[in-house]
């Protein structure tokens, strides 16, 4: 037991170190100017998607509840945070103050919305919760589209706070590291074990005295907070944002990243977020067919990972190669 825990901790450190290394390498490449324009433009969206995927993984992987409204929380955070940031541009504060403050503001607003949405709905289960989160995401989209302060259907003009990848990368990297660290620590903590116990058997968890509603709500709020922060970062990398972009399709996109990366697996979410953000760009060569290829890949991956023969093959391969990783995958 002691040994496995040590191994797990080592695995966590390895994950965090790998993410930090990757970010450092990207930063080094970016600031020495050796990245192409295409790659540079993808840095911030990739960081945003990593944060979105890891935070959704908290809900889907750790808590075991299907949420289809994650983009809604991102949208709430994005618009509120960016409005704060735009208001702050007049105060002549540097980006180093402006961005963290607006990120915090956006994250907190999203967290409040997470609480508001979660409080009445989290007693629903399974597909009912999925459709309610989807509905809440659509309601949020509809409200933001119809509000005047957020620019209505034309979208919010964020040219005033727009910043390039070079300026935003440190903040993006910090946010990614923070999210990964929080998720890894939470998973190994008393609270994380409680959350996973609720996922595995709610009634049993309740009977040993866990307050299911409170844990569920906490997970929901934390995930919404990070989605909001990621939204603010994303807003800074665009010159104009429309609420319509943050619909259920985007929530589904993030869910796809989480599922392909592996439920509850942090490194899985990170890798899958990178691959799935880069893949459609890389497929630009075959522009017309790229979404078709993406769809086919999605279906085939699901068929392959659920194929008993393939599973046995990969299972034995994993066991012989890396016992530690196999164990983490089983978690």
């Amino acid at each position, binding site marked *: 037991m002691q040994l496995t825990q040590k191994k797990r901790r080592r695995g966590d450190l390895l994950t965090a170190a790998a993410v930090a290394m990757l970010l450092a390498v990207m930063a080094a490449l970016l600031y020495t100017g050796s990245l192409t324009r295409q790659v540079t433009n993808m840095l911030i969206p990739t960081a945003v998607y990593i944060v979105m995927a890891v935070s959704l993984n908290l809900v*889907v992987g750790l808590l075991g509840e*299907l949420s289809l409204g994650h983009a809604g929380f991102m949208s709430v955070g994005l618009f509120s945070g960016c409005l704060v940031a735009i208001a702050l541009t007049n105060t002549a504060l540097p980006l180093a103050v402006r961005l963290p403050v607006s990120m915090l503001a956006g994250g907190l607003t999203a967290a409040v919305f997470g609480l508001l949405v979660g409080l*009445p*709905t989290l*007693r*629903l*289960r399974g*597909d*009912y919760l*999925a*459709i*309610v989160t*989807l*509905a*809440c995401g*659509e*309601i949020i989209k*509809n*409200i933001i*589209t*119809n509000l005047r302060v957020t620019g209505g259907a034309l979208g919010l003009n964020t040219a005033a706070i727009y910043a390039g990848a070079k300026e935003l990368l440190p903040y993006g990297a910090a946010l990614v590291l923070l999210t990964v660290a929080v998720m890894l620590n939470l998973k190994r903590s008393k609270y994380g074990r409680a959350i996973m116990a609720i996922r595995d*058997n*709610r*009634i*049993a968890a309740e*009977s040993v005295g866990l307050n299911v509603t409170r844990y569920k709500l906490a997970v929901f709020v934390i995930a919404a907070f990070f989605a909001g922060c990621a939204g603010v970062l994303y807003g800074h990398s665009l010159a104009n944002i429309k609420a319509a972009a943050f619909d*259920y*399709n985007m929530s*589904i996109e993030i*869910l*796809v990243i989480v*599922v*392909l990366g592996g*439920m509850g697996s942090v490194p899985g979410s990170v890798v899958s977020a990178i691959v799935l953000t880069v893949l459609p760009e890389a497929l630009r060569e075959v522009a*017309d*067919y790229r*979404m*078709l290829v*993406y*769809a*086919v890949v*999605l*279906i085939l991956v*699901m*068929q392959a*990972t*659920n*194929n008993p023969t393939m599973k046995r093959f990969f299972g034995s391969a994993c066991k012989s190669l890396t016992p530690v990783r196999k164990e983490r995958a089983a978690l």
Partner: protein
Amino acid sequence: MTNLIQTLISGLSLGSIYALIALGYTMVYGIAKMLNFAHGDVIMVGAYSGIVAVAQMGLSPWVTVIVSIAVCAVLGVVIEFCAYKPLRQAAPLSVLITAIGVSYLLQNAALLLFGSQQMAYPTLLKLPMLTVGGVQIDGITLLTLAVTAALMAALTLFIDRTKLGKAMRAVSEDKGAATLMGINVDRTITLTFAIGSALAAFASMFYGMTYVYIKPTTGAMPGIKAFTAAVFGGIGSIPGAMIGGILLGLIEQMSKTYISTLWADAIVFAVLVVVLVVKPTGLLGKPMQEKV
């Protein structure tokens, strides 16, 4: 008053379309315990098949109806066979992601074949405007209502009275026991997909004749709304899907007329949230029982 009646009638017609789609969702959910996210896109394919049959092949309206139904039913069965059947034992989320993949596949295949520009759905049937006591009713609206009512009655009879219907009910209740009773579960699931998709073909025709313009993403929003309707009525319940669909259509049309077109979607979804919060398994859904 005339305004109210007109709104109610168009709400009913929209609701019938939702109900037809919702039936496909709820039947598949009841039997295969999966959310078939690609169901909305089957409608889009049905609509395009109608356009191709009339505009490019010059078929008569009646043949077009049959072609649309056949195309959708076959598509439903093929999707089930290729994508969902290998995943019978898989985790529900894997099946959900596969369904999303199929949905993307259909949308993008249509995008490649027909382009992103919208196409007009042909007028299959020329029906006059009816005026009853100052209320103007489109012939298509009445046709939609009549056909939907007939289809629902037929479906209810089929499920309640026939052997195949009985098999479907048995499979949805307990797959293992149904197998032991000699019911071919796979064939029953295939049949369910065929019926659900054929109903989607009817929905595509009424959608096409009412809203005319079709593009590759046409199926997405009605699909989501119908899914909402199915959950609203209690997913897995056939009368629930009918009632849910019609109520949703009425609510949407009423809020469009009396409140605002811009807020209609938010109102529809807000009503859903409220209903589910009050009644967590939908209007007619069975309460879930849990065992440790």
